[in-house]
């Protein structure tokens, strides 16, 4: 087991990791920017090292400073959390070169999954369903028609060099295909100097469903069920739940089995998340996150496992203490991401916390580094708290969430608590009838 872990992160996840270490008898080193010297995890950690000024590039992304801090404190291992350096393969390599354990998968797997094309090819090879489309570029209308017929309409024509929505056209019927290709090609040529196009199936109202996996160095891999993270605004998750209201036990078992088998074939070590779009009963691979995720607590609440503890354990080379058959899902959990933002405009609202009172009681969990008198700095992500609630079933969970949101007091700044209160009062949400486009439409309606 490690003697001392350096936590290369900040905010609630740094505190989360500190807690897991403390509960395992492992000493912690908090590294922080000058803006975070009063942060909760810095105060609780066994040691702390200031590694740079507020800008993340000079502190939380400053690899030499973090390595130096690990060396001067004699840390055995580095936990990167999420964001920052957590999916930086070069960082994982450098950590290893300094004979320090990187708590995460191999640099090779981080690199592989960081390359969107290689990741999709790998997923396909391992038997994970991907969005069907052309294998590479399409060179003629005839070829495009053939592929579109095979995968079914609607399809989307995309520029290989595209981005930001430019060079993309949705095609709903065969006769639209030719004009769409011309338009997309012209647009792409003008915008990117490259009119190479490819074609994919277009999903109209998919859900975002992801499977949590965990592998050890001895060939054991389990899946820990799915999370439904369809409530998104500008690709930022707002609220996550497990299990997904859209899946039944059979689908969960089938898809979880496919994912676990594939990840096992890959020889993947540690925690990982395989993300899918889900529409009409079909899963389509998006990407794999090779790290701990913000929303990991919902899985913890229904499995009873401490994922950070397990992540640290497998990084030491320990075997998983359970098999797939030992994983039991118990009830329903929802996580609300609470941001220091205006609940409707999402304008950031950093500042001093005048009052802080988290909700308590049965099956209510708060992961937050806030305290009364703390100042939320303006330099970083606006996530300040995660409220996670479990219930015997989804309805109980919603009612418990309602009363917890009512009790939660964060004074002095604006937060997204009122948004979550609106959401849990909405019939579509209560019925689980939402997809990845739903939240933005809901917000437009609410503004109008």
């Amino acid at each position, binding site marked *: 087991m490690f003697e001392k872990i350096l936590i290369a992160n900040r905010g609630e996840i740094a505190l989360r990791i500190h807690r897991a270490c403390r509960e395992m008898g492992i000493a912690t080193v908090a590294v922080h920017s000058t803006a975070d010297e009063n942060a909760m995890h810095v105060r609780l950690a066994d040691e702390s090292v200031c590694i740079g000024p507020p800008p993340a590039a000079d502190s939380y992304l400053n690899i030499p400073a973090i390595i130096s801090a690990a060396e001067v404190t004699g840390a055995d291992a580095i936990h990167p959390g999420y964001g920052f350096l957590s999916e930086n393969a070069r960082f994982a390599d450098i950590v290893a070169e300094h004979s320090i354990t990187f708590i995460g998968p191999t640099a090779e797997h981080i690199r592989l999954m960081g390359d969107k094309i290689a990741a999709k090819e790998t997923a396909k090879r391992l038997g994970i369903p991907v969005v069907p489309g052309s294998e590479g570029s399409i060179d003629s209308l005839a070829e495009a028609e053939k592929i579109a017929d095979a995968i079914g309409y609607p399809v989307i024509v995309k520029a290989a060099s595209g981005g930001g929505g430019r060079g993309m056209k949705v095609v709903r019927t065969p006769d639209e295909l030719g004009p769409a290709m011309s338009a997309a090609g012209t647009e792409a040529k003008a915008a990117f100097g490259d009119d190479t196009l490819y074609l994919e199936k277009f999903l109209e109202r998919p859900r975002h469903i992801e499977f949590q996996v965990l592998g050890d160095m001895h060939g054991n891999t389990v899946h820990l069920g799915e999370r439904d993270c369809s409530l998104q605004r500008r690709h930022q998750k707002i609220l996550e739940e497990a299990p997904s209201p859209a899946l039944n036990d059979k689908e969960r078992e089938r898809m979880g089995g496919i994912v676990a088998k594939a990840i096992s074939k890959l020889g993947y070590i540690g925690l990982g998340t395989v993300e899918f779009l889900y529409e009409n009963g079909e899963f389509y691979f998006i990407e794999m996150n090779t790290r701990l995720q913000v929303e990991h607590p919902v899985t913890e609440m229904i499995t009873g496992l401490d994922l950070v503890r397990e992540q640290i354990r497998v990084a030491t080379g320990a075997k998983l203490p359970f098999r797939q058959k030992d994983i039991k899902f118990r009830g329903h959990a929802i996580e609300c991401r609470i941001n220091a933002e*205006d609940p409707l405009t999402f304008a950031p609202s950093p500042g001093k916390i005048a*009052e802080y009172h988290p909700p308590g009681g049965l099956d209510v969990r708060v992961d937050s580094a806030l305290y009364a008198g703390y100042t939320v700095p303006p330099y970083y992500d606006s996530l300040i708290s995660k409220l996670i609630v479990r219930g015997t079933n989804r309805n109980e969970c919603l009612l418990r969430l309602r009363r917890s949101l*009512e009790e939660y007091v964060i004074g002095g700044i604006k937060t997204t608590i009122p948004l979550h209160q609106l959401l849990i009062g909405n019939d579509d949400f209560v019925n689980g009838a939402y997809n990845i486009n739903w939240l933005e439409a809901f917000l437009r309606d609410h503004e109008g």
Partner: protein
Amino acid sequence: MATAKKKAGAKSPERRSADKRVRDLAMLLQETGLSEIEIEERGTRIRVVAAGHAGAPGAATGAAPVAVAPVAAAAEGQPATADEATGSHPGTLLSPMVGTAFVATEPGADPFVRVGDQVNAGQTVLIIEAMKVMNSIPAPKAGKVIEIMISDAEPVEFGQPLLVIE
């Protein structure tokens, strides 16, 4: 009763709708940066006070309701809360028990006292019914009734101001 957050008999649909409105106002409060909003609409008066301006966390959810009371109650002549009224006048008679206050022996009958009446110490000024028992409430001293804070058949709680004798 004046400090009860809702009157007895408030029904769930009304409460739900009021809750929704409160939530909307809470967001408006955050949006505008105001510390307090009071609004009266469709028979309901709602006051929301931003966190940091209320006394205790229970009273605020970011920005949250501190009072949701039917306007009816307010309109019946009891704007003062117990806290405000208590101590405002040394001759205030506070309710010695929880129950239902009656200002007359029966509906439609003459009240025991009216504002402006002279009363003697020990004279019955009200009746409070608790557990089917009618309890006569005597005037604690002689004097002139200058204010009556409750209306007939109104529930009252312990310590609630009933009337003022000067």
